């Protein structure tokens, strides 16, 4: 992996096991500033584990991960580094006792020590960014799935992260709600946010990804620009998976 100034995230030979289950078997990759990379692959292949290794929610057994100049895997101040890595969960995981505005501002006040009034102003801007300023005082239970996920994205954005990790952000959504979330993510990608996204939304991948990474069995099988990977994959297995995927999702991904 070549290291250059623009590299936001870099990992080398990352391994992770849960008991006897060797989930990640040596993953190396890097993301440069402003890039969007999409991680695809069959379930149980370690895509989500890779994301939680990056923010050390499940620390890897071996291998190294850097965020800019800081080696996350050797850091004593993981909390500090996590502020710089946004994380968007499949099940949203909004804080149930807080309004949309509270969800977005709590990291600013509690983690960044920002003054309450300033935090609310910034949170409001982030809600505007995802088109939900009119839902600021709604509680999670009063929002649709798509709205919840957009609040979760605003919550990640508020921390001014270097990078946002998305763990299947649309898989828990009803089909008609997927579009609004992808719309927001597309906008972020265009604004130059650095993103690593686990997703099987092929249309989304095709239109925004700089690179698609196909993972299987805990390793990266193949990676490349979506046009190349989707039309003529170099590895047979990639093609098989992709054709199965388009059989499932078909044109639905083309939003």
């Amino acid at each position, binding site marked *: 992996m070549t290291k250059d100034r623009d590299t936001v995230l870099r990992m080398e030979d990352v391994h992770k096991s849960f008991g006897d289950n060797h989930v990640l078997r040596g993953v190396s990759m890097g993301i440069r500033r402003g890039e969007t990379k999409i991680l695809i692959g069959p379930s149980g292949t370690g895509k989500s584990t890779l994301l939680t290794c990056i*923010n050390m*929610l499940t620390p890897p057994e071996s291998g190294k991960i850097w965020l800019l100049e800081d080696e996350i895997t050797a850091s004593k101040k993981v*909390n*500090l580094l*996590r*502020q710089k*890595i*946004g*994380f968007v*969960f499949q*099940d949203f*995981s*909004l*804080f*149930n*006792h807080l309004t949309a505005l509270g969800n977005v501002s*709590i*990291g600013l006040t*509690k*983690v960044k020590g920002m003054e309450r009034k300033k935090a609310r102003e910034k949170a409001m801007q982030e809600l505007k960014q995802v088109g939900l300023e009119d839902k600021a005082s709604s*509680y*999670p*239970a*009063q929002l649709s799935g798509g709205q919840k996920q957009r609040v979760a994205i605003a*919550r*990640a954005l508020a*921390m001014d992260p270097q990078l946002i990790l998305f763990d299947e952000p649309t898989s828990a959504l009803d089909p008609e709600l997927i579009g609004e979330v992808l719309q927001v993510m597309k906008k972020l990608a265009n604004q130059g946010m650095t993103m690593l996204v686990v997703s099987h939304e092929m249309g989304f991948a095709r239109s925004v990804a700089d690179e698609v990474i196909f993972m299987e069995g805990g390793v990266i099988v193949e990676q490349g620009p979506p046009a190349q990977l989707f039309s003529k994959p170099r590895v047979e297995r990639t093609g098989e998976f992709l054709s199965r995927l388009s059989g499932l999702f078909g044109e639905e991904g083309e939003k």
Partner: protein
Amino acid sequence: MTFWDVIQQSWSPMLDGLQVTIQLTLLSIVFGLALGLILALGKVYGWKPVRWLCTAFIEIIRGTPMLVQIFIIYFGLPPYGIRLSPLEAAVIAFSVNSGAYQAEYLRGAIQSIPSGQMQAALSMGMSRWQGVISIIMPQALRRVIPPWTNEFIYLLKYTSLAYIIGTPELMAQARFVASRNYEYFQTYLFAALIYLAIVLVFSELFSWVERKVRIPGFEFHK
């Protein structure tokens, strides 16, 4: 004597007793809550020896009769130089006992909060402790109100056991009054009505609090 005569003759000592009962209950529930929080957090988030210690404490307290605990503290400690007034001994016994029960209610409430909440807190850069304080506890405390109200009501009525070591609470006063007027039925009925009234007041108060801090969609049964 009519019931009305009994009330007229005895309301003054009975209200004195009620005051002690309320004092005993409030002190014990508050100390018990503090102890219960420590035990519950220790049991859920502590490292192994702490977890084990908290569990052992809770099991021992829940597994022995409250009256035995009161006797140990009031009659058992003086030989070791610890002399307590009946009220002090009762407050300690009830606090410790209630703390063990409150710990279990709190633990259940804490563990009912989905693990994703803590994951989300950590991933935005909060420490585990910040996650507990800012994210988990505000939700868990709301959930614990109904079982906690139950514990409060139990405790309020259990404080009547303190009469045995001579704490001048409501039950002790009722016995005193009845031993003078020989109207056992009517005097104890009066005491019972006072207990009932005060329980109703508190349970109404706590359900008001529950409604006050309610968050849309966060109820248990939905």
